[in-house]
C-alpha cells in the first residue's frame, strides 16, 4: 500500500478512529498490529507468514538469550537466529543473483542453470535487519527484550516504516510503545507537517525528475551527452527526494500515532566530504552497518589499512543490501574505494572551516561523485551503465536534444536550499507548532502538492530493496 493512495488514507483514518475509541493499551497495540498486517497484506498476503515466522522465532530466541546463562548456548542461539534470518533474505533476494553469477562462470563449460521464480517480499531487507539488530542487541545485553510477543510484533510490523524504513532499533521503539500511544495537538500538527513535506518531495520533485531519469536510463544511446549528463545529475536529486520524502511521510504518520522515528537524512548534499555524506544519507542504514558490520569486522582498531579495508567491505555489503546485482556491488565498491582514497589524502587534516566558495565547491564535488556512482545504482544492467558512461565521456556525444527545465531547477533548489538550511539554521518559522501561521503553511504544502504533482506517481525507489 502506497502512502500516496486513497487506500492508505482510508486505512490511516480508520486506525486513528479506532485508536481514539479503544483507550486500553493492549487494544491499541492490537489495532496497530492489525493495521500493519492489512498494510502489508494489501501488497501480497502470502508473505505475512514470513513476517510471522521471523517475529515469533526472534522473540522466543531473545527470551532464551536473556534467561540462559550458558554462553555457548546463547551464542548458538544467536548464530541460529542470524543464520535463519540471513537465509531467508538470501533465498528471496540473492538466489537468482547467485545463479546468474554462476552461469557466467559455467557458460564456457556449456552449463546454464535456470532462474527460479522467486518474488521478492516487499520491505524484507528492512525488517530482517531490524530483527537481526534486536537479537544481537539482546545477546550483547545492550537492549532489554520486548515485554510480550505483541509488543515485539508491533515493533517488527509497525506500518509507517515497514516497507522502506527508517531501520529502527528496538531500544528506540519499545520504550515509546511502553509509554503508550499519545494523541496530542503537537503530534497532529508536527505529523501533518512531516507528511506534507514528504508528499511534496515525492510527488512534486521526485516524480517530476523521474520523467527525465526513467527515459535517460531507459534509452541513453538516443540522447546527446548533455541530456545524459542532466539525467545523471538529476537522478541523485531524485533518489534523495524520493527516499527522504518517504522517510518524512513515515515520520509524519508515526508522529500522528504518537511515535518518533529516527532521522534518516540530514542535508546530505551540503556534505564537505564523502565521509560526512555517509553520515547524513540513509543514516539508519549507515549506523546499522557501522554497528553490526564495520565494528565487528574490527572497525578502526587494527591500523589504517585494516580500517580502510573494513570500510570497503562494509560499503560492498551495503551495496549488495540495496540490490542483488553486480551494479550494486560496483556501486558500493566505488564508494568504498572513494572513502578509502579520501581517508588517505585527508589523513591528519582537520575538517575545513566553512568558506566561500570552497565549501560550495567541495559540496558540488561530493554531489558530482555521488551522481556518477549512481549510474550503477540506477542502470538496470551493466550494458546500460556502459552506454551511459559512453555518453558522459562524450565518446558518442550526438543524440536527441531535450532540456528538461525542472531538473535544473530542482538541482539548484537542493544545493542552494540545503546550504541555506545548514548555514542559516532558520528556527522560527515552523519550529513552534502553536504559531498561527503553521497550519496555513501546512495546508499550503498539501495544496501545492495537489496542484503541481507530476503526471503519474511512481513507486518509491526504496520499495524494491
Amino acid at each position, binding site marked *: 500500500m502506497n502512502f500516496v493512495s486513497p487506500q492508505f488514507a482510508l486505512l490511516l483514518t480508520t486506525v486513528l478512529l479506532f485508536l481514539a475509541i479503544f483507550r486500553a493499551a493492549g487494544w491499541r497495540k492490537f489495532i496497530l498490529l492489525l493495521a500493519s498486517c492489512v498494510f502489508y497484506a494489501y501488497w501480497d498476503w502470502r508473505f505475512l507468514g514470513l513476517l510471522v515466522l521471523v517475529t515469533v522465532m526472534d522473540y522466543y530466541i531473545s527470551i532464551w538469550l536473556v534467561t540462559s546463562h550458558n554462553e555457548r548456548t546463547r551464542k548458538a542461539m544467536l548464530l541460529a537466529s542470524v543464520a535463519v534470518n540471513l537465509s531467508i533474505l538470501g533465498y528471496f533476494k540473492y538466489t537468482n543473483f547467485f545463479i546468474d553469477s554462476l552461469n557466467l562462470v559455467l557458460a564456457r563449460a556449456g552449463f546454464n542453470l535456470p532462474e527460479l521464480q522467486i518474488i521478492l517480499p516487499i520491505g524484507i531487507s528492512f525488517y530482517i535487519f531490524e530483527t537481526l539488530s534486536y537479537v544481537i542487541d539482546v545477546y550483547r545485553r545492550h537492549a532489554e527484550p520486548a515485554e510480550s510477543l505483541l509488543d515485539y510484533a508491533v515493533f517488527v510490523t509497525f506500518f509507517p516504516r515497514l516497507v522502506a524504513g527508517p531501520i529502527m532499533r528496538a531500544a528506540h521503539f519499545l520504550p515509546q510503545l511502553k509509554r503508550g500511544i*499519545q494523541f496530542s495537538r503537537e503530534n497532529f500538527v508536527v505529523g501533518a507537517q512531516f507528511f506534507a513535506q514528504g508528499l511534496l518531495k515525492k510527488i512534486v520533485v521526485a516524480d517530476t525528475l523521474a*520523467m527525465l531519469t526513467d527515459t535517460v536510463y531507459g534509452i541513453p544511446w538516443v540522447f546527446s551527452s548533455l541530456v545524459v549528463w542532466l539525467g545523471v545529475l538529476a537522478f541523485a536529486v531524485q533518489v534523495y527526494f524520493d527516499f527522504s520524502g518517504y522517510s518524512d511521510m513515515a515520520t509524519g504518520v508515526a508522529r500522528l500515532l504518537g511515535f518518533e522515528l529516527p532521522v534518516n537524512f540530514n542535508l546530505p548534499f551540503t556534505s564537505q566530504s564523502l565521509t560526512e555524506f555517509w553520515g547524513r544519507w540513509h543514516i539508519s542504514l549507515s549506523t546499522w552497518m557501522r554497528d553490526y558490520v564495520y565494528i565487528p569486522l574490527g572497525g578502526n582498531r587494527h591500523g589504517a589499512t585494516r580500517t580502510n579495508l573494513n570500510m570497503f567491505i562494509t560499503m560492498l555489503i551495503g551495496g549488495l543490501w540495496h540490490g542483488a546485482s553486480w551494479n550494486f556491488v560496483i556501486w558500493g565498491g566505488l564508494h568504498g574505494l572513494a572513502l578509502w582514497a579520501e581517508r588517505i589524502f585527508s589523513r591528519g587534516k582537520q575538517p575545513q572551516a566553512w568558506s566561500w566558495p570552497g565549501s560550495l565547491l567541495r559540496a558540488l564535488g561530493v554531489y558530482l561523485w555521488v551522481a556518477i556512482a549512481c549510474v550503477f545504482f540506477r542502470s538496470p544492467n551493466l550494458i546500460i551503465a556502459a552506454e551511459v558512461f559512453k555518453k558522459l565521456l562524450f565518446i558518442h556525444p550526438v543524440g*536527441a*536534444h531535450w532540456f528538461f527545465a525542472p531538473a535544473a531547477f530542482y538541482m539548484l533548489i537542493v544545493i542552494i536550499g540545503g546550504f541555506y538550511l545548514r548555514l542559516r539554521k532558520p528556527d522560527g518559522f515552523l519550529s513552534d507548532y502553536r504559531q*498561527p*501561521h503553521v497550519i*496555513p503553511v501546512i495546508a499550503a504544502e498539501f495544496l501545492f502538492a*495537489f496542484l503541481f504533482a507530476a*503526471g503519474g506517481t511512481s513507486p518509491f525507489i526504496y520499495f524494491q530493496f
Partner: protein
Amino acid sequence: MSASPSRKSYIHPGHGAGYWLIFARSAFLILLSFELVIRLFILKHSPVEYKPGWGIIHVRDSYSVHGLEGFAVTHYLDNGEIVTPYQDGISVVVLGDSTTKAAQIPNDSNYVSLTEIALRTRGIHADLHNLGLPDRSIADYVALGPYVQKEYAPEIVVLQVNPSQFFFARAENRPNHFVDAGNGVLKLVTDQPDQVHNLAFTNFISHSGLLTLLDFRARNLLISHSPGQNGTDLAGEGQPIPEIERPSKNKDPQLALRQYGEEILPQIKALQAAYPNSKLVFLVIPYTPTFPSSLDDKIGWISPDDHLLARTLFFMDDVYMIYTLDAFQDLYVSEYNLPRGTWNSAFNFGHLNSHGHAAVASELVKMLGNILSYTEENDETGK
C-alpha cells in the same frame, strides 16, 4: 518543536482574536501568492460562451495563459479563432484540436501561422483561420460546415484529424453524432450539449487561476483513464475504431485496411457534403512515438492507428492528405530534434513543440502552395 502537548485540543489552542487574525492573514497571503503565480505563469483560462452551431468557444478578444507545457498567451478572435499574423487573402480554414490551437507556444509560432507566413514569402496571400477547437469529433466538423462556409467561405479546409475523432463521431452521448441511415450513408444527429448548463460555473472559475488549476487537476484525476470523454481533448493516442481489430493485432493488414476504409469512408463523404465549395486537405499528425528497443533502433512515430488512418485516406479519391511521419523522422535524423515535448513535458510526449510545428508547417506549405498555385494559374487562364 517544543512545548508541552495538549491532550484536549486538536484544532486550535484557543488563543484569542490575535491568533485568528494572524491565521487569516497568513492564509490570505498564501492564497494570494498562489493566485498571482498561477494566473501569470501557469494557467488562466479566458471566458467562454455558447454560440449556436459553433458550440462552446472562447469569447472574442479574450486571452488565456498556458504554462503547464511551455508558456504562451493565446489571443482569441471571433468563433474561438486563434489570431494569426495576417487577416487578408484567400480564405483557408484550419479545423483541428489542441494541436492546432497550440496553446503551449506563441500564436505566431504554431503551424497555421508559420504556414501563412511561408505562403506569403512564396507570393501566395492566404488568410489562414486557426480554428483549433479541442474536443470536436468528425460529426462536430460536419455540423460546423454550414457555419464555416457562411463565416469564412474558405477555398480550402484543412482538417487535422486523428483516429479518436472518427471513433467519437459515433458516440451517442456527444452533442453531434452519426447514426446509420442505411446504404452506407450517415445521418447527423444534433442535441443540445450538456456542458452549456455548466458555463456559468466555468466562467466563474475562469476568473481565478487557482480555481482553474484546481478544477483542471480534479478533472484530470477523475477522468485520466477515459481520454476523449466529456469535455476532454480528443488529441492524443488514437482510439481504435469500434468493431475493427487493432491493426497491430490483425493478422491480415489488407483486411484491416479495408475494414477501416469501410468505417471512415461514410464520414469522409459526410465531410465533403458539409464543405461543398472547399477543397478538403486531411492532416494526420502521428501522436505516439515508438522508442528504440536496441542500440541500433531509432525513434519513430509509427503508431498503428495513425498509420492506418493515413494509409486509408491516401487511397481515397478527391481528398488531399498530409501525413507528417517522414517530416518528423527527418527532423530527428537530420537535426536530432523532436516534434513533441517542451521544457516541462515528458520526452517527446504532449503537444507539438516549435520544431514539430515547423515540420508540420513545411508539409502544409508544400500542399497549400501546390493547390493554391494551381488554382491561381487556372484563374489567370480563365479555366
